[in-house]
């Protein structure tokens, strides 16, 4: 019997990793909606991920929660599970499954660039690596996010009469962008769309310092000149944005490196800030893991599978159900 099958089912535990439908037992890598869903019987996840799931879906979104800290092996029914930080968002984990002398790592979503809002990624040696490939094409070469934030602040300084609206996913990206702004010296209040508030508060209660945050709704136009607002991507071009003075539409995403895409999305200031590995980082991670077999999922599998084979590795794409191929980072 294999340690894990191609639907990320672990037979020894009768458990599924990030299942797209309610299951009796689920192991959840992180809190984004295409990985964490409500309605499972029992959920095994990091303490932070469990807190995130409760805030998003309610206290009783699973029958039972079991929290497992990073680096703490948990042995049951002939298999051992250990979580290692994935660096993607707060609480995000790679899952190491050890059984029958085999080591399997399911990365979930991960990144290697520094981000103080998430526990930093650690490479984990394994025989089979199941890796994501959201940015699995060599056109993706993410720049230093601090340079992107510098471009944003330059634009804010040059246009003091406008507000800058940054489209961000509410979980992870928003808090990271705020942290990057703080680290770059932006100490004024940052304004939030209503959909951002609960998760930002959760991050703060879990010890992530992101400074003073205020609701963006209810502010006068004049007060919002020169301010920075964080909102979901859907709101920054929609009716909600009309309340701000001549807003500069910004979006923080790895997709923003493609200018034609930014143009089509009517983004005036694209910020290439990603919570996933770029092409080079995916390559390095695969080689570092020492895995002989690589399964590729979540994104542009073809190119990464092709590259793995060129390196002499066994590789194949996984078509997992319920994953949206092009919906953006983390499906959020």
């Amino acid at each position, binding site marked *: 019997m294999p340690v894990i099958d191609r639907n990320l089912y672990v037979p020894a535990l009768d458990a599924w990793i990030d299942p797209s439908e309610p299951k009796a037992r689920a192991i959840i890598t992180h809190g984004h909606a295409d990985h964490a869903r409500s309605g499972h019987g029992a959920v095994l996840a990091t303490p932070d991920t469990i807190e995130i799931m409760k805030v998003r879906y309610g206290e009783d979104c699973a029958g039972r929660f079991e929290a497992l800290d990073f680096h703490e092996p948990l042995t049951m029914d002939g298999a051992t599970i250990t979580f290692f930080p994935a660096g993607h968002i707060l609480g995000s984990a790679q899952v190491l499954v050890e059984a029958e002398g085999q080591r399997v790592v399911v990365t979930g979503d991960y990144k290697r660039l520094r981000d103080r809002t998430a526990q930093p990624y650690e490479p984990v040696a394994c025989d089979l690596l199941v890796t994501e490939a959201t940015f699995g*094409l*060599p*056109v*993706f*070469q993410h*720049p230093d996010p601090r340079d992107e934030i510098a471009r944003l602040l330059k634009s804010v300084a040059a246009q003091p009469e406008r507000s800058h609206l940054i489209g961000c996913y509410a979980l992870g990206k928003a808090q990271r962008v705020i942290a990057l702004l703080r680290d770059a010296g932006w100490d004024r209040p940052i304004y939030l769309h209503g959909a951002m508030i609960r998760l930002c508060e959760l991050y703060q209660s879990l010890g992530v310092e992101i400074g003073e945050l205020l609701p963006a709704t209810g502010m006068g136009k004049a007060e919002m000149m020169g301010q920075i607002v964080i909102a979901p991507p859907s709101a920054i*071009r*929609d*009716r909600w*944005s*009309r309340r701000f003075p001549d807003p500069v*539409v910004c979006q923080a995403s790895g997709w923003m*490196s*493609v*200018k*034609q895409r*930014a*143009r089509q999305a*009517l*983004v*005036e*200031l*694209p910020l290439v800030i990603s919570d996933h590995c770029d092409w080079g980082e995916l390559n390095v991670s695969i080689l570092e893991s020492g895995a002989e077999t690589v399964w590729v999922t979540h994104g*542009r599998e*073809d*190119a990464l599978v*092709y*590259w793995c084979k*060129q390196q002499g590795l066994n590789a194949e794409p996984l078509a997992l159900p319920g994953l949206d191929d092009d919906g953006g980072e983390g499906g959020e």
Partner: protein
Amino acid sequence: MKRFADLLELLALTPSRTRKIEALKRYFAEVPDPDRGIALAVLTSEMDIRNVKPALLRDTVLAEVDETLFRLSYDYVGDLGETIALIWPHKAEGELPGLSALVDLLNHTSKAELPKVIGGLLSQAAIHERWALVKLATGALRIGVSARLAKTALAEMSGAELQEIEEVWHGLRPPYANLFAWLEGKAGRPDIDNAARFHPLMLSNPIEDKDFEKLDPRDFSAEWKWDGIRVQLVMGKQGVSMFSRTGDEISGSFPDVVESVMGRAVLDGELLVGHDFEARSFNDLQQRLNRKVAQGKQMQELPAFVRVYDMLFDGEEDIRVLGWEGRRGRLEAWFARNPQTRLDLSEVLPFDGWEDLGRLRRQGADEHGHEGVMIKLRTAPYVPGRPKGFWFKWKRDPNVVDAVLMYAQRGHGKRSSYYSDYTFGVWKGNEIVPIGKAYFGFTDEELKQLDKWIRANTTGSFGPVREVKKELVFEVAFDSAQKSGRHKSGVALRFPRINRIRWDKPAQEAARLEDMDAFVGAT
């Protein structure tokens, strides 16, 4: 180069025209010669780096990147230039040379050496610079900036009239040092051969019913308003050029005209297609316009000609100061001296009072598909721009049809949070088939109401487009209708706009496809 890359990015992504102009002004004011002149040439598509073609760039990249990975990436990105810029392994090995040094380098490197040189440049560049570098090298900007916008920025920067810049533009070459010197007041206006370049056109104003009582018909002459495109023929010592009304040279698409005209002059007229000066529909002309280089078969089937209605230069003499009657006399005399096969004179219509002209206008529209009539003050000199009171256009009444709103799309810039672009259709049996798209003709207040209605009545959404309940009727005005294989309905409207929103009208009472036949037949 960094500065130019920043400018290109801003121009590509900023929806506001005013902001684009501000950015251009700042660039032209702050960047020294010759770099700013090279930038101007790139923005106005006057820069041609002959040896750098997309295929050469592709080969350069394939020496560095696996072909399969390149193909998969290109499939994803969809734009060759951008794929190259993004996929080039990021090195940022140093500083790129300035814009003019860069263009010099590309122009003076042999074809065999070019891949190596370009590879070196791509390795030196930062990510944004690679994008600009590829755009510069291939000349395909595709960032939504017209030559006119760049010239408008020059005018605003210097206080010169756009008109004046257009007048000298076609006599200038990159890097335009003499142009900038003049605009900055350091030198006089560049001296160029007056009779051998484009001169900005004189345009007309629409006439309104109340205007007629103030105007004495005896002071005016009338001509048909032809449904072609306005051109200027510049027939100088060095040869013949044909320009569109914005000053773009279109000689290459119409060698049949350019190569057969005789004599020296600068003429103003309407470009049309058809045999023996029998003008065919605008649709037919469009087939010729869409070609950068003319095709033999098309030139036989759709020969082009120019119906001339005015003269700016008689030989080398500038006659724009003369009144219309004086110029018309010179034009007729010139035609008598210079027999033509592809030029004819626009006929002057005799008429007896405004009412009589109104009758002629209707008859011309119904029987010959004319767009209406032009009315010109007999004493008016030729004044570029749109001077008041000299030339009037009296268009035939628009056709209208009641159509049903089918889809709405978000607008751009200020309108990006509104659904402001509308596709509408008419009944074909029990279904509605699209006949056109329009995005103006309504007030800001109506736009708000429409936006609200669309959001409340959405049945599906496809990216920026929403499909709506087939319940709202627009009265759509249009200039003419033509058969079209491109639309499911088989009909295409020319210049459609929303005339009225018929909140009151049930969709069942909207027009049927059969009703459109009457309009198609009319032109």
